[in-house]
């Protein structure tokens, strides 16, 4: 009985995890080996053909798939550093004592509360190249949603504005966990502001930082709503992200086998990136 106790406690979670994550994930591999439309009676087995098509430049999915992977890559590389650094700055400011601190904490977090549909529509209108308020205030005619690189600037900017509060709150919690006496000790040793930040704050935040970096990378790589609503993938399919294309392929063209293969490819890539990030942060521990 005693031996089984921990397993019994784990059981509810394992049951949910198995039902909603593990089984569908394995089923997804099975789907990716077929020409799969869930409503057609015939689902011919095609082996690894769906995967091979991703690397065959003559296949109908090749261009679109790699274009979408590139879009996801551009967005991730551009947004992740901003989403790691800017919220940290905000958190450091909001961690200091000043009048109205609670209000500002709420203000920075507020956009995150809004759904992607709300912020997407809002910014699509604000950023409209010919009728939008942003161009009207700036006195410019920048194609914020229909030209490059402007569409990327808009998407990254909107995403940073939207999700900055979330990372900031995580950092803030991390900052409050750093013992005050470490700062006192540093000051006794003659550390300045910068030295304090480098040698006390950053190491103190490391566990939080690992979470923030990985979580932000995964969230950025899964970007869908902003492109879908603000740019609709335009110009051409330049801002159509991998998730957007996979959804198109699987749910609109009903080629679920091909979509599943793409998903697995993307998942493997993200797993690899996550492992690398973990390693980087672990090595620093030594």
């Amino acid at each position, binding site marked *: 009985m005693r031996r089984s106790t921990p397993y019994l406690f784990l059981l509810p979670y394992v049951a949910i995890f198995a039902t909603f994550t593990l089984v569908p994930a394995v089923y997804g591999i099975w789907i990716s080996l077929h020409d799969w439309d869930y409503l*057609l009676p015939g689902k011919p087995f095609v082996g690894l053909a769906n995967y091979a098509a991703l690397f065959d430049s003559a296949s109908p999915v090749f261009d679109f798939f790699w274009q979408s992977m590139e879009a996801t890559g551009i967005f991730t590389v551009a947004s992740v550093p901003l989403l790691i650094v800017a919220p940290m700055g905000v958190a450091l400011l909001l961690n200091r004592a000043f009048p109205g601190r609670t209000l500002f904490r709420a203000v920075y977090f507020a956009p995150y509360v809004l759904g992607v549909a709300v912020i997407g529509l809002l910014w699509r209108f604000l950023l409209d*190249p010919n009728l939008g308020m942003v161009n009207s205030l700036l006195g410019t005619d920048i194609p914020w949603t229909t030209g490059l690189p402007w569409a990327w600037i808009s998407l990254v900017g909107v995403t940073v504005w939207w999700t900055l509060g979330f990372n900031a709150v995580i950092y803030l919690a991390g900052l409050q966990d750093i013992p005050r006496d470490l700062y006192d000790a540093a000051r006794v040793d003659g550390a300045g502001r910068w030295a304090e930040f480098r040698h006390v704050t950053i190491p103190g935040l490391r566990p939080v930082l690992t979470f923030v970096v990985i979580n932000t990378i995964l969230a950025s790589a899964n970007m869908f709503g902003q492109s879908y609503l603000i740019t609709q993938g335009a*110009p051409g399919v330049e801002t159509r992200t991998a998730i957007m294309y996979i959804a198109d392929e699987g749910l609109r063209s009903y080629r679920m086998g091909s979509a599943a293969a793409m998903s697995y490819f993307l998942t493997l890539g993200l797993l690899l990136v996550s492992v690398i990030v973990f390693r980087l942060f672990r090595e620093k521990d030594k």
Partner: protein
Amino acid sequence: MTDNLTRRGLLGLGVGAGGAVLLGACGDDGPNPVVNGGGGDAQPAATSYSGPNVALTFWNGFTGGDGPVMKSLVEKFNAANPNIKVTMNVYEWADYYQKVPAAVSTGNGPDLGIMHVEQVATNAARGVVLPLDDVAASLQLKEEDFSPPVWRAGVYNSKRYAIPLDVHPQGMFYNKKVLQAAGLDPEKPPTTGDEYLAALDALKAKGIQGHWASPFPFTGVHQFESLTWQFGGQLFDDAASKPMFAEDAGVKALTWLVDLVKKGYSPKNVAQDADAIALQNGKAAFNWNGIWNINTLNGVKGLEWGVSALPQIGTQKAAWAGSHNFVQFKQKANDPNKLTAGKVFINFISQQSLEWAKGGQVPARKEVRESAEFKGLKEQSAIGTQIDDLHFPPSVPGIADAMATMDVAVNEAILLRKEPAKALADAAAKAGQILEQNKKKYG
């Protein structure tokens, strides 16, 4: 699924033939053996229902001004048929087309729905919708009552799956005040390509960019399609097995649109909906938009606007149009009462198509279109004059996948990122591959 319902058994119940026979044993004709029945010889479906009380769900994508009109028709039906209760749910069309097949496959699908003409074949092939030949028989509907292309599009593998409700063509909306400001007659909008360009020149001289060229499906791609047909081309060959939009007519059509931007008749980088909004706030004079725009413009206070047939830019008259169609969805458990009640509902609404027209549509039925009441709806009937020149997206399974590549080409060309011919050729190559794939998939 129940297998114990036979055609004869259902007839014995007085339910009618055709679509009612869903899960019968005849599995040889058609790619999906699960759904069968119907056929041209179907008996008429019931036009009234006297069975026990039933509740029906009716899903559609009427999110605009058409939603309240359909809702009031549903209420009217519920009042007239106390033993049938229809509940209507509205989704965005894009969500709707993803949600419905999934709901149907899990047995939670609605009883009734609306589908665009180009979606019918896909959903028939995938076994989402049921044959409705019997409804057509009881409505005594024939091809000549409708716009023939719409009527034919409802047939897949020689069975009818859709009953047309309306056609929604593209028309030319214009802002009268803006035309006046440029010294143009607001009661005589341009009807030919030359007149149109002359009007755009006059507007340009006053600093007005008259026709905002949208790079998005609404409305840019529809304009491209209208123009392709005007230049005598086709989007696909008749069997929809080969893309033809990159041929001469398509290139001419797209070049014409791109030139609007290049010659300064349109601003660059027009975003989604900006073309329609520009007409409303007096920044543009013309907007080729769908007939649903009537309701939107009626809601804009102080706007003086009109609508006419599209000007003839190419060698012949032509305009893009879509069409809403009634469909009945496959259910896991087959309830003959519900099926009958659903057919009674379709029958009822189909006969109310003049009411529906007031919501900003052209009725699918010829007799309604030619009635004095419809002619009294000035805007609708102005667009309705194009009825013989309308072209619809082809109705073959999976066509939307191939048409999506065309959207990309129009987008790239109007945003001046690719030459029209090159953009179209690239898209056509991809569309050809997709059509090939679909042929294998749907047989």
